């Protein structure tokens, strides 16, 4: 665990306004450390404490006093949600909030237990992502929307054409089954995506009209989606429950009642306005696809509310129930909408890669280096214009992986699924494949064909072959696979909407694979390369054949950095030499890359492509199969020129671990 030094910590506390809180916290921090796993958690806690200014001085202190108890049960994020829940539930009841923060309120304990059992988006991400893709019938990326302010209005989902931002967590006041709540939000979003016109001009519409028209639109699209998904009505209905006892006449209460009545399709509400809304809505259901007609209802009802002098505060308003989205999908407010800030804080799906600053800066100890000194090799290159080979044209340098200096990256895989499916994939394909050996001298079972042949020979008076048994054995020649990672600068590119890079994902995928294949890792090597002109193709033997995969090897994978360019031909030739030294007659080089070959001293696009194609032919000639996994969606044109049919374009980065493992297993069995 990396812990900031004492000096830095004090400086970090400066941000906290209240001197009493600062003092208490300084005293408590050493003890709290055991609950704070990563440096980030540490920072997050301090940030949270800075935000506590929203609370009364007494409440603040009470909370800080309970931190030990709370953090033993909750992550900092969950703690934050727990506080938000209290503030929302005890709105305008300061005494109750005080009791809540002192854990004296019933709800405080319920909400604590709730948060402790993990009910945030991350808990449900895997099944939800499947649910969303299936229901939408296409990939709909789920992203995490973080609650930026403690005392703000509750968060709602944000729908865009290809992705859905969901709140990082709902609160217990929104309902108890949060998986279903998220499902309801996804289904609601799918209804909009299927049936709502996007970004209608808001023009001069008043905020209240926009709110009511959106509410009617919610009901319309839900009605439409429920036509062939009747179960969704019940799913949404669960979250309308609190509105069924609502009697108040505020804007919030009235709109909740209307939304609920529209969902239930009943007109028995005591309120004239609500009944009128349901009536109008039902009349127009004759043609539920007529968006305009429904929009009219919204205008009428908003007008009525205005005349009823119902107060509306657009800053406070959030669509209800909790599964609804923020309506931004429906409207265009003229000026281009700044992308929601939360985009930057998105969590990553699949492999989660986290940066951890290394305070000690050293790369010593444990992570023994494989290549102690640099070694130089010369390779030819293919000049396609003259159809000749330039001898000793490229210098390739094997270098040790530099462990220190760069931030260490810690890979965690929150989605158990990734690992599990790789395990089962590998188990199903039995890397150390057992087989029935036929025609054996001895064994437990008779070999049917051999026995019959022997008896036939015997009857015909010929000397029979006595090898008539089968016995279980192993396929003798074990294959060797060398994974060759492209470490060029472009792999540092951030994946849009996420905070990790292509290289991070590739590293994660490699580690997951190495860990999953266990014993078979010895038939498996991970090397990487980049190039800086023809005199400097760098080559890193990150993990070699016959080396088990352990902590030190993982460290080396994590320490890899993306720099320079992609002169792939030389790297392929070098890899070929290394894999050829392996025993057995089944050898594979599996390239993972993100773009086409290039280098600083080459200006003809085709040159390095043709050279790489030649390298692949050379490999094939030496009995080494090459296969390429590329993350470049536009790779088709050149990658087939290099690798023939032996490539796969991975368009969904999240799926890289799967594809890498699948390709690996298939190549092993080829």
């Amino acid at each position, binding site marked *: 665990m990396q812990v900031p030094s004492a000096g830095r910590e004090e400086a970090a506390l400066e941000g906290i306004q209240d001197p009493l809180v600062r003092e208490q916290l300084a005293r408590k921090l050493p003890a709290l450390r055991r609950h704070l796993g990563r440096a980030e958690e540490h920072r997050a806690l301090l940030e949270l404490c800075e935000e506590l200014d929203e609370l009364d001085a007494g409440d603040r202190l009470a909370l800080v006093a309970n931190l030990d108890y709370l953090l033993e049960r909750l992550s900092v994020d969950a703690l934050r949600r727990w506080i938000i829940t209290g503030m929302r539930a005890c709105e305008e009841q300061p005494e109750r909030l005080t009791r809540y923060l002192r854990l004296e309120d019933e709800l405080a304990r319920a909400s604590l237990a709730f948060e402790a059992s993990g009910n945030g988006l991350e808990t449900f991400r895997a*099944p*939800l992502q499947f*649910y969303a893709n299936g229901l939408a019938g296409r990939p709909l990326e789920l992203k995490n929307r973080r609650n930026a302010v403690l005392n703000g209005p509750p968060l709602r989902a944000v729908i865009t054409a290809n992705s859905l931002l969901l709140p990082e967590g709902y609160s217990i006041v929104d309902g108890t089954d949060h998986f279903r709540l998220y499902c309801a939000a996804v289904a609601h979003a799918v209804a909009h995506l299927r049936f709502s016109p996007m970004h209608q001009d808001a023009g001069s519409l008043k905020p209240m009209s926009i709110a009511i028209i959106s509410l009617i639109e919610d009901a319309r699209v839900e009605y439409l989606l429920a036509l062939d*998904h*009747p*179960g969704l009505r019940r799913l949404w209905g669960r979250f309308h429950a609190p509105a069924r006892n609502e009697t108040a006449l505020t804007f919030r209460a009235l709109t909740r009642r209307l939304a609920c009545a529209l969902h239930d399709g009943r007109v028995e509400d005591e309120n004239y306005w609500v009944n009128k809304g349901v009536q109008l809505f039902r009349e127009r259901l004759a043609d539920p696809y007529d968006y305009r007609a429904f929009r009219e209802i919204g205008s009428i009802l908003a007008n009525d509310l205005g005349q009823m002098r119902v107060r509306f505060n657009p800053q406070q308003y959030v669509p209800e129930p909790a599964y609804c989205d923020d309506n931004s999908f429906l409207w265009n407010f003229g000026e281009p909408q700044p992308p929601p800030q939360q985009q930057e804080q998105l969590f990553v799906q699949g492999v989660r890669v986290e940066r951890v600053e290394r305070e000690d800066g050293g790369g010593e100890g444990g992570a023994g280096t494989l290549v102690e000194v640099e070694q130089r090799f010369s390779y030819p290159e293919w000049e396609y214009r003259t159809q000749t080979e330039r001898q000793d044209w490229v210098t390739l340098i094997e270098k040790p992986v530099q462990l220190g200096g760069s931030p260490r990256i810690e890979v965690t895989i929150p989605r158990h699924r990734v690992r599990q499916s790789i395990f089962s994939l590998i188990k199903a394909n039995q890397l150390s494949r057992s087989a029935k050996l036929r025609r054996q001298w001895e064994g437990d079972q008779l070999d049917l*064909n051999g026995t019959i042949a022997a008896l036939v020979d015997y*009857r015909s008076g010929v000397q029979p072959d006595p090898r008539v048994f089968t016995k279980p054995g192993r396929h003798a020649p074990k294959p060797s696979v060398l994974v060759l990672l492209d470490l060029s600068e472009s792999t540092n590119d951030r994946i849009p909407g996420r905070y990790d890079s292509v290289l991070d994902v590739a590293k994660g995928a490699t580690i997951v694979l190495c860990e999953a294949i266990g014993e078979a890792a010895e038939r498996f090597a991970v090397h990487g390369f980049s190039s800086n002109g023809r005199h400097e193709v760098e080559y890193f033997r990150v993990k070699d054949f016959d080396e088990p995969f352990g902590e030190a090897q993982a460290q080396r994978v994590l320490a890899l950095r993306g720099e320079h360019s992609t002169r792939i031909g030389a790297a392929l030739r070098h890899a070929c030499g290394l894999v050829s030294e392996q025993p057995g007659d089944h050898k594979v080089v599996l390239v993972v890359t993100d773009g086409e070959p290039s280098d600083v001293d080459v200006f003809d696009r085709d040159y390095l492509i043709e050279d790489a194609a030649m390298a692949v032919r050379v490999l094939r000639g030496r009995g080494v199969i090459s296969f390429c996994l590329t993350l470049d969606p536009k790779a088709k044109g050149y990658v087939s020129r290099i690798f023939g049919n032996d490539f796969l374009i991975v368009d969904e980065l999240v799926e890289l671990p799967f594809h890498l493992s*699948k390709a690996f297993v298939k190549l092993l069995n080829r």
Partner: protein
Amino acid sequence: MHGIVEQYLIKTEPYYCPSGKEIDLFKSAYHLRLPMMLKGPTGCGKTRFVEYMAWLLKKPLITVACNEDMTASDLVGRYLLDPSGTVWHDGPLTTAVRYGAICYLDEIVEARQDTTVIIHPLTDARRILPLDKKGEIVHAHPDFQLVVSYNPGYQSISKDLKQSTKQRFGAIDFYYPDPEHEATIVAHEASVGHEVAAKLVGIAAKSRALKGRGLEEGISTRMLVYAAALIRDGMRAMDACRLAMTRPITDDEALHKALDGFIEAHFA
């Protein structure tokens, strides 16, 4: 027709609901005795289609399910012993070749490549089957046709047919029927109402969107027929869908949750 293959004649018309021109295409191919390859995911109606075509053409149909352990002898035949000595027994392929049947090799990719090559001389202009062990060359009966099925599946890197095998066949692509037809098929096969069938088809469609993104393969028509039959016999829809559709198709808990969500969305 020879008595041996007569037993392979299909007596009653199998139910087959076409989704395109496949019946006419196949008829023309049979006319030329062109070897045919039916490509498509599991449980989408390939086997049913061959049965239907065999019935329509009034030809016997001999089906062999291929697997890894299958040897060439399992297809062409072998010597067996009887009290008087050794006798040759034709394998299913040889029977079809000799007496004129349609031979259907199901999941041909599963067979090892040394097994697959024995069909090569049968599937080019020669139309012969050499029986090495017996020292006989069987010339194919004029009615004989070879049909294989083949599931291209995931980027088949390792399990793939050789080009020299592929290029001997004509091919028809199969996929799950469109929703309307698929519901009709399920309703017919399991004797359930169209509404129930349509719901099951809706669930399947969602699972098919997850192919390659979690699921190796979507829920097949065959599974829908099973689930529908269970519902017809009184099982709760949720239980039937789990038993016949979502539990067999994957072991992944996260996927189960999502698939259960689809079931709930359709069955209120």
